[in-house]
């Protein structure tokens, strides 16, 4: 996606300062004032992947709008689709904020599991099940994979494969939740 080097680790620590050949990009100005500011999402792969299906459920219109704008504008999409891009980012941030407000425990459990298991959803079905339940109850967002022919691979009991290296905290939390609900 990137067409230019954006390696801009301007370090704040003595240690990396003193490392040789630590380079940064000179062009680090702010965007001009007429372009409204938007806070970047600031989340890493695990939380983003964990929230991705909920982001899609809530922000589908914004996302499609943005991608259509990119398609129409071609290489000018970078300049012309800033407004749509801001909407996309704000919507995704709202999803993450809501997840943190309502389902913090389950969300953390799931993205820790993802981090633990190399971002494989199949290793984290139990944590995911807890998260999906909580999110559906409190935010009314549901995960769905388009075109899976009703074979909802992420739901309980729809899997053949079991995690080779399970994430024990989430397995334990799942068992506890099952025991409490039973």
């Amino acid at each position, binding site marked *: 996606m990137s067409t230019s080097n954006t390696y801009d680790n301007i370090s704040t620590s003595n240690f990396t300062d003193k490392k040789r*050949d630590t380079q940064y990009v000179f062009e680090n100005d702010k965007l001009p004032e007429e372009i409204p500011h938007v806070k970047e999402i600031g989340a890493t792969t695990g939380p*983003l992947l964990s929230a991705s299906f909920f982001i899609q459920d809530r922000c589908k219109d914004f996302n499609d709008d943005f991608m259509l704008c990119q398609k129409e504008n071609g290489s000018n999409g970078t300049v012309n689709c800033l407004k749509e891009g801001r909407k996309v980012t704000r919507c995704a941030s709202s999803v993450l904020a809501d997840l943190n407000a309502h389902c913090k425990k389950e969300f953390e459990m799931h993205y820790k599991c993802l981090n633990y298991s190399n971002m494989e959803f199949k290793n984290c079905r139990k944590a995911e099940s807890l998260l999906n339940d909580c999110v559906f109850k409190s935010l009314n967002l549901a995960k769905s994979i388009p075109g*899976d022919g009703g074979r909802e691979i992420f739901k309980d009991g729809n899997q053949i494969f079991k995690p080779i290296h399970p994430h024990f905290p989430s397995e334990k939390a799942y068992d506890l939740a099952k025991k409490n609900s039973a």
Partner: protein
Amino acid sequence: MAHHQDLPPVQGYDKIQWKRNIPSRGFRPTIWLGMLITMSSYGFYKIIQGNREQQEISREKLQARINLLPLLQAEQDRDILRRSLAYYNREAEIMKDVPWWEVKHTYSDKNEFHPPNTVLVGKQVDKDGLFWNANSKDRYN
């Protein structure tokens, strides 16, 4: 004188026992074949189920990334625009005394946004570092 030829006995010889006199073990061959077919059918069934599930898992992963694509691209676009504008502003500032100079990308026209292919990169050094940190105090003056 009558000639007598040596002939077999009238009631025939005894049967030759060419087979060992032990009971045959195991099932009939058809049953073995049936078992083979049943077991391998079950195995192939499970393999096909597993392959389908594997495909669903891949699709799920792909879909998760597709869902994040607009978000990541929006962020990247803002960053690229910010840096490109900064680059061209710097270029205009440097070349302001050259009247014929036009700030634009070499391989692009004015109607198309094309981020500069050149990146100005600086070295991150500690101002208070000593000479073994590859620093020179004069550089900052």
